[in-house]
């Protein structure tokens, strides 16, 4: 591919990505780096969610189960085998394959029906996984969970930062290519009007299942990274709270864009951190979740398209106005 063919926004994104590699040299504190790592991980997770919600128009209430599958595969392999790169690769492979199988089955079962069946089945299955993780004590440590070691190579926060950033960049550009491809356009037509897409001769079910599998696999990979950063697993990785968080990251950032979920992940994670840190100032910040709720309501009322969606709309309007004034 010739360099001239790459459009301007790609260069901007690449520039920002490169700039992010320098951040660990400036923010040397472990906790600051930890927050950045969390942002990257949840950005990946939120992008996978947006592939369903924003691009294909499928609502999932149990997306966290793929995250949890990735998390538990990593934790168990690190614990039972050894903390080596080989075991990690094996864990990633298992996580990805398991997530693919589960998302495929869920998709085949429900995606031919109306969208709320998918939402409900994923919610139920995520609950089922939570119960299994709680009850299968010998393997999962039950409610208390367990700690484990990670490969030496990934034990410093700088190396982990680099790994999550590289993953984020690769997945971002991968998904961008995927959604911009003719295949991705069909996903969007399904979001816009499923019946019409069908009457154009597309087998809508196949497209939706493929979207569900890709999304599940990416989410499970986010779960793997999450475990590497925490080095501790418990049943909270299957909690519905995480799905809700990711849903809000996607909505605040901008549904149907890939940059949106990344921004949303950044904002939500930072807000989590700052607001809960403010509890010394005033007792209300201990109940930061109330503030949070208020912010969400305001966003949904005033910026239903999210940050990126609103900006894009403004820009599109401006170019339209310019085009009109040129015509005159």
């Amino acid at each position, binding site marked *: 591919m010739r360099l001239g063919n790459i459009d301007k926004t790609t260069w901007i994104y690449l520039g920002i990505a490169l700039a992010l590699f320098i951040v660990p040299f400036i923010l040397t504190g472990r906790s600051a780096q930890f927050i950045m790592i969390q942002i990257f991980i949840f950005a990946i997770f939120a992008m996978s969610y947006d592939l369903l919600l924003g691009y294909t128009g499928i609502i999932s209430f149990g997306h966290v189960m793929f995250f949890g599958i990735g998390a538990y595969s990593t934790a168990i392999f690190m614990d039972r085998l050894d903390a080596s790169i080989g075991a990690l690769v094996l864990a990633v492979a298992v996580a990805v394959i398991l997530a693919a199988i589960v998302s495929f089955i869920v998709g085949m079962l429900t995606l031919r029906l109306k969208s709320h069946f998918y939402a409900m089945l994923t919610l139920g299955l995520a609950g089922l996984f939570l119960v299994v993780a709680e009850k299968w004590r010998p393997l999962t440590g039950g409610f208390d969970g367990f700690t484990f070691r990670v490969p030496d190579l990934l034990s410093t926060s700088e190396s982990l930062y680099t790994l999550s950033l590289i993953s984020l960049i690769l997945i971002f550009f991968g998904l961008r290519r995927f959604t911009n491809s*003719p295949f991705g*356009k069909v996903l969007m037509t399904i979001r816009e*009007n499923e019946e019409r897409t069908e*009457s154009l*001769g597309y087998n809508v079910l196949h497209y939706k299942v493929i979207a569900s599998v890709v999304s599940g696999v990416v989410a499970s990979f986010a779960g793997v990274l999450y475990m590497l950063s925490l080095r501790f697993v418990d049943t909270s990785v299957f909690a519905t709270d995480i799905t809700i968080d990711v849903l809000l990251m996607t909505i605040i950032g901008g549904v149907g864009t890939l940059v949106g979920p990344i921004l949303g992940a950044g904002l939500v994670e930072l807000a989590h951190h700052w607001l809960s840190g403010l509890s010394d100032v005033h007792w209300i910040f201990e109940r930061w979740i109330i503030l949070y709720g208020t912010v969400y309501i305001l966003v949904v009322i005033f910026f239903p398209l999210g940050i990126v969606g609103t900006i894009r709309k403004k820009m599109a309007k401006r170019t339209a106005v310019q085009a009109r004034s040129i015509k005159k």
Partner: protein
Amino acid sequence: MAILETNELSITFGGHVAVNTVSIQIPEKKFTSIIGPNGAGKTTFFNLLSGQLSPTGGSIYFKGSEITGLSAMERTRMGIGRSFQITNVFPNLTVLENVRVAVQSEAKVRYQMAAHFLHYKKFLDKAYEILEKVFLTDKAEMLAANLAHGEKRKLEIAMLLALDTEILLLDEPTAGMSLEEVPAIIAVLKQIKEQKDRTIVLIEHKMDMIMDMSDEVLVLYHGELLAKGTPQEIVENEAVQSAYLGGDFHGQST
């Protein structure tokens, strides 16, 4: 020879019989029009032909083989394409993308993602070619949501043409269009007709248009086939005239 055939086709909604034992033969590579007063069951009949609805009785044959139980998707792939009366384009995609998605479907490379990329240029070229036919080239990069109503109708036809199907089912392509916009649509339809390689079935209210272009006219009335014949025969048919409230027949243009 009949390319599309229905045998005693019926559908009832609750107690209401929307289409009642209609048996027709659509001749191949001819221009057939379906007319009838509002509520006569024309669009419902189309929905049965294209697979949007399943009949409660009777059967449909395409080139001699039964297709009654097939889905809309399967019928499109066999060669029955349709446009919709209520504009049914994808609003948040550009005009070009709307057409390209339809081109892509016809190209039978639906799942191979690599093949999608390889054929990309070809898709685009064909999409542009079709946009030119319906005079939408200068709107290619606009979001379909921002098109005027008449332009959406043109886009709807462009998507149907992009499917490249043997049968084109057109449901009131000029509905709600301003008078200045209608000739462009008629020009497109005439162009397709003159190629003589497609079977066109048209639902319309604009009588002059139907009389001018049709090889055969079918009249539906209260869900039943009231008459069929050449445009001239239909004009002279007394049953049809009374169905259209006598003299009002020639003036129908809604």
